[in-house]
């Protein structure tokens, strides 16, 4: 009675890739990871950071940085989240984020959006003039100096800060602190509170 054994059964030719997308032989669909900047408005209340960061770790999204700060509306905070994922993962992250109850709205920023990071770099105080010269190369400035150390502040893109940090290596770096990125769309576009 039992019908044909496993490999003798009717079956189609097609297949899907690991992301569940049907593989079209003419246009094989593969998605390489890319970086995305997500910007989210969230209700400013206790626990939202835990809720958002918990979502990202639980769903295994590859997160690069996450920053939070107040907005002009004191009941709303803004989060900037950098993730690196294939396109379907980025879409998922957006949708899952939007689903959280305290999240008001979510948007992925255009690649040309303004992105800024801040770094404070503390180096040995032996050559303050040289330190200053390097800081100026990166539009930074010394914000604190003592006989033993100089602390420099640099603002800019991640690449610029990476380069600055590398340049300061020559001065016996004692400590570095970096924020994650804060980002805003260029032009008049804003992230609506409800959309």
């Amino acid at each position, binding site marked *: 009675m039992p*019908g*044909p*054994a496993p490999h003798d059964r009717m*079956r189609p030719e*097609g297949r899907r890739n690991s992301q*569940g997308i*049907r593989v079209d032989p003419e246009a094989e669909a593969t998605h390489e990871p890319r970086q995305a900047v997500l910007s989210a408005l969230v209700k400013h209340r206790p626990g939202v950071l835990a809720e958002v960061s918990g*979502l990202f770790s639980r769903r295994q999204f590859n997160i690069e940085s996450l920053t939070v700060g107040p907005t002009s509306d004191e009941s709303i905070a803004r989060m900037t989240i950098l993730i690196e994922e294939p396109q*379907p993962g980025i879409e998922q992250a957006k949708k899952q984020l939007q689903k959280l*109850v305290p999240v008001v709205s979510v948007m992925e920023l255009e690649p040309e959006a303004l992105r800024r990071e801040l770094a404070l770099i503390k180096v040995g105080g032996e050559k303050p003039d040289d330190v200053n010269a390097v800081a100026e190369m990166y539009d930074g400035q010394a914000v604190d100096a003592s006989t033993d150390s100089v602390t420099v502040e640099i603002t800019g893109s991640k690449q610029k800060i990476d380069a600055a940090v590398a340049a300061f290596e020559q001065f016996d770096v004692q400590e570095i602190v970096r924020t994650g990125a804060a980002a805003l769309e260029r032009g008049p576009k804003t992230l609506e509170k409800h959309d």
Partner: protein
Amino acid sequence: MSERASVPKEDEQSTDQDEAAADDEQAPVTTGAQSVVRALENAGAEYVFGVQGGAIMPVYDALYDSDITHVTMAHEQGASHAADAYGIVSGEPGVCFATSGPGATNLVTGIADANMDSDPLIALTGQVPTEFVGNDAFQETDTVGITQPVTKESYFASHSDTVGDDVSEAFALADAGRQGPTLVDLPKDVTQGETDVEPKAPETPDTYEVPEEADDEAVQEAAEVISDAERPVILAGGGVIKANASNALREFAMEYEVPVITTMPGIGSFPEDHELSLEWAGMHGTGYANLAITNTDCMLAIGTRFDDRLTGGVDSFAPDADIVHVDIDPAEISKNVYADYPLIGDAREVLRQLFDAMPRAPDADEWREQCQTWKQEYPMSYEMPDDEPLKPQYVVEHFSAVTDEDTIVCTGVGQHQMWASQFWEYTEPRTWVSSHGLGTMGYGVPAAIGAKLAAPDQEVVCFDGDGSFLMTVQGLSVAVREQLDITYVILNNEAVGMVRQWQDGFYEGRRMASEYPWIPQFDKLAEAFGAAGFRLEDYENVEETIAAAREYDGPSVIDAHIDPGENVFPMVPSGGDNGLFALNEDHLDEI
């Protein structure tokens, strides 16, 4: 056919006194706890399942004066499962209570279970007074932190004036859109604190928007694709039942003659005795459903999240199919399986839209014939040699045959759960109550309690495993106290059988920690609890034992000693190809 199991709007046993009380003006709210209870009353809660304790005591005290019926459970895990099952059967959020610390942590399994299956549930937990929060006080746990990943939202109530609003909102949220669990953590000072603020009407938070109808153009496009299909199928998930869309599904499928496959949570959304039904697909689904999934060229998937137990490996899942995916939760679209035609909206609304938009029925005579051939070739069957010990499938099949179609079946988790889904014939929504996404052993005993209270006029049967039953056996005391007419059938193989099956299939038969030859005599155990106990060992007695257990007015337990060698087939190994299901152990070596 009713979309909902019958939940009586009025408590039939209500006394004159109760009625008199209901006629009275409601007493004004004077404490946070009373505001909590008022919020539950406003939301229409009829039952609360819970266990007392220090931090929740003020709320219990307020419940003393309420018409809401409290069902004291023997363990908080049972409270959350009973509330979950109540939610599945009634369609309204089930409510459970627990105290802080261990009470709250004991609820977590049931909350996580409800979350995976999108069951409407609201959990209220006591918490230490606000001033002690964060100090590792006696019976303190970070309940919001623990439950956040397994709820739609967990609230920490911060003030007596707003605690009622928190509960109202949590209740509304549990029920809205894609249903699911919510929790409100209630510090004792907040519930004890004075307030005269009446809670607001239940309303979802302003950031929570639920789509209703899908975009018309997208619907039109999808309808064309379905009409053009040569090998169409409908895949109906649990969301169809949640959206009360079973009737709409039936109308659509029958009008356009599209074969219907359900997921396991979707069981009951379409009558299994109908010609177009291929029953359910997935790891232990029917061979014909799995073959249809593999060979379809167009799948209308409704209210399913494409769980891996359904899809097997995604690379081989419906590899030729255009997928039209209907879901109320945008985050489900293309999460596991890419949706070529996403339709975001309420399943019932979207089915109606699709129904109207279909230009014609698909031309699929040959395909339907093919599906019928598969039904002939791969029937759900089992071998039943006369001299062998009792086969579990026989017990399920026989029970199914003697009961009405609105009988509700609950289960634990394991082989018995699979047999209960394979060999019972389901025709009505909300008659299949099981733990799918989380796969929680111990679900059955308390779930049957919640189901029976939600549908007191319907027969309730629970198929359980010996392992699963032991995990929540204390719930039997509740069924006895409440005199709930439930028939528990333990398909007893003296093992955690599903584990043993995998050990035999994939671990060279090394049966580590899977055999339970020391289990109690369940019939005697049942009697010790005050239930009726029966022992069943051979075919001759199946009929009379089932009849006697059903006749007994109150909880009864049939300890059915089944063939311990019996395994569940068909089977698609984890991550495998649905079309290559194994019908027996030999096939497993081939695939």
